[in-house]
């Protein structure tokens, strides 16, 4: 019973991590870039969700506030993701070609973007913790999280594998130059990848806050780390991999809490990461081959 309860909590926790992990994995799949600002897009999404939910009536109108707040957060985060890409990454890709170290420079700008956004949030919203309005009983929130996360992830899988845009994304992940020569508007595909990842992060953020009650400017660090590890464990670049990694991390975390060593949660998660990478350097579902996304 104890284990079953922890398993359910772990699944809900894990599906939120998975939603965020998708953003890391998609961007890496196409650009070979770890977008460290992703965790801050998550945090910004949580804040916008908070303000929108409060403005729409919060507890008094749970359905309207919940749906409206989530949509507002998703729209805003999508825009933010696109802006981040346009400001911090795109110029390096086009102008820095041949001059900059194309592996390291975008990584550093990503870190810079992350710090910038986090400080901007402190400036705009102050460092204080804010309590999220509780729209649903926690049990129901967890059911909603699970259903929402899985339907969205299935939809994403469908888009990537069955639509023209998905085909373009997969083409970019193989070879951007070749894809452009074939007539794919690569910068638009990249933008859409960032927008999609950010929208999912915002959905994850609102669900996460509804479940765990609070929003604050440094919240992206914790969940961002876990989601990044989830993406790597599952095989970065692979969508089912990110989902699997997220669920694994959620469940490992909750199981650790049942033991006397609850403080070792992150230790175990990172040990699992190292173990997986030692045995299978590409991650659980990652392929050493070319197709990623």
């Amino acid at each position, binding site marked *: 019973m104890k284990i079953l309860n922890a398993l359910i909590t772990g699944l809900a926790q894990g599906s939120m991590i998975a939603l965020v992990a998708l953003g890391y994995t998609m961007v890496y799949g196409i650009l070979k870039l770890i977008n460290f600002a992703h965790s801050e897009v998550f945090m910004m999404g949580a804040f916008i969700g908070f303000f929108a939910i409060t403005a729409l009536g919060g507890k008094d109108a749970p359905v309207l506030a919940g749906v409206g707040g989530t949509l507002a957060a998703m729209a805003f985060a999508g825009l933010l993701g696109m802006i981040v890409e346009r400001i911090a990454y795109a110029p390096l890709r086009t102008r820095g070609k041949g001059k900059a170290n194309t592996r390291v420079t975008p990584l550093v700008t990503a870190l810079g973007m992350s710090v910038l956004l986090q400080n901007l949030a402190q*400036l705009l919203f102050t460092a204080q913790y804010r309590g999220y309005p509780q729209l649903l009983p926690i049990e129901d929130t967890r059911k909603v999280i699970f259903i929402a996360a899985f339907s969205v992830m299935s939809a994403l899988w469908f888009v990537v594998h069955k639509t023209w845009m998905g085909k373009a994304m997969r083409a970019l992940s193989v070879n951007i130059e070749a894809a452009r020569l074939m007539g794919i508007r690569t910068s638009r595909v990249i933008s859409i990848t960032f927008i999609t990842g950010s929208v999912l992060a915002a959905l994850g953020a609102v669900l996460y806050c509804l479940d765990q009650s*609070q929003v604050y400017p440094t919240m992206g660090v914790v969940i961002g780390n876990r989601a990044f590890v989830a993406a790597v464990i599952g095989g970065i670049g692979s969508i089912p991999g990110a989902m699997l990694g997220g669920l694994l991390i959620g469940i490992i975390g909750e199981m650790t809490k049942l033991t006397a060593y609850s*403080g070792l949660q992150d230790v175990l998660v990172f040990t699992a990461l190292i173990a997986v990478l030692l045995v299978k350097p590409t991650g659980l579902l990652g392929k050493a081959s070319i197709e990623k996304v």
Partner: protein
Amino acid sequence: MLGRRRWVMAIVALGASALGLFACTPKDAPQKEAAGKDPSIPAAAEPWKVGAYLSLSGAETQFGIETKEGIELAVDEVNKKGGVKGRPVKVFYEDNKSNPQETNNKVLQLITRDKVVALLGEVASSRSTIGGIVANKHKIPMITSSATAPEVTQIGPFVFRVCFTDDTQGQMGAEFVVKTMGKKRIGILYASDDVYSSGLATQFRDAAKKLGGEIVVEKSFIKTETNFTTYINEIRDAKPELVYAPIYYNAMVPIARQAKAAGMPGSMFVGGDGWDAETLLQDAGEEMEGAYFTNHYAPDVPWPNAQAFLKAYKERFKRDPSSLSSLGYDSAQLLFDSMGRAKGDTPEAIRDAIAETKNFAGATGTITIDPNRNADKSIVIVQIKNKKFTYFAAVNDKAQKP
């Protein structure tokens, strides 16, 4: 990833300190003017120079400012009464930016440049330790308002405090739970990587066992945790009568909500002074209904001095004082009282007078300085009732009951 976190923290600290600077500069300016123009101060008398080093910017800005407000109020009151021994009091405020290195410099500056006879500060135990070492070395008495770590006053004969220690708080929590409430089966939930939280939990556990309580379940988490359901389920299944949760208010919000969802009402929780924040009431007031915690102070304590302070503070700052403001006020008042009783004007004479303080009537209770230079005083039990912090009782077997 670790490197990245450290970076982020550093930048955040920098940004926050810059903000803090902006936040407090305009407040400072008019204050100094007002003190200079106060007509009740005899112009000829040489003022007493007292130094206060506080976190007026940086991570703990809020605490520093609240403490400063308490000190300011005390200074105005004493100067309105004609000062100490006919001489007005002048406080030199220094901002240590919530930073250990700055603390060292600022305290040295106050002692060597400004030649202060006594020091007030700091809000945090870590920086009070640094200031205490410097003060003790230069033989300048120092009173910290809110450093609760036991080690602070062990530095030497010149370091004092007006708050209770973490040890006392944990023990008094146990006394309240086992003796006053008569609960025997107790659970504990705390943050293992937080010195405050794990320190209180240790003290509580030992004291509760001595008093005949049984710890039926104990769970610890790390500070970054936000999902407590699994911990709460385990605690609930062990069927304790009460759960001691010495946790900061920000973690208490998700705990309270998730506990209520798991069928554990707020009245099952007992905490420490880390709960003392308006935010807790706003965000989890309903879920925390009926919970108790040990504190320095409650807005409605029935002591005459507390009520007078409350009124004066409200008039001046237009809101209820926090624990930190009232402790800052008490640290300054106790110092001025000692200066009045001292047999001379030297820092040594003032030190001796502080050490001899007995039954000083402060806003946070009746304070006697014990041989270890700690404040022997009552601890207030606060109950959360109708989304408000309300006075429930005062506990301490040694101190005089109000």
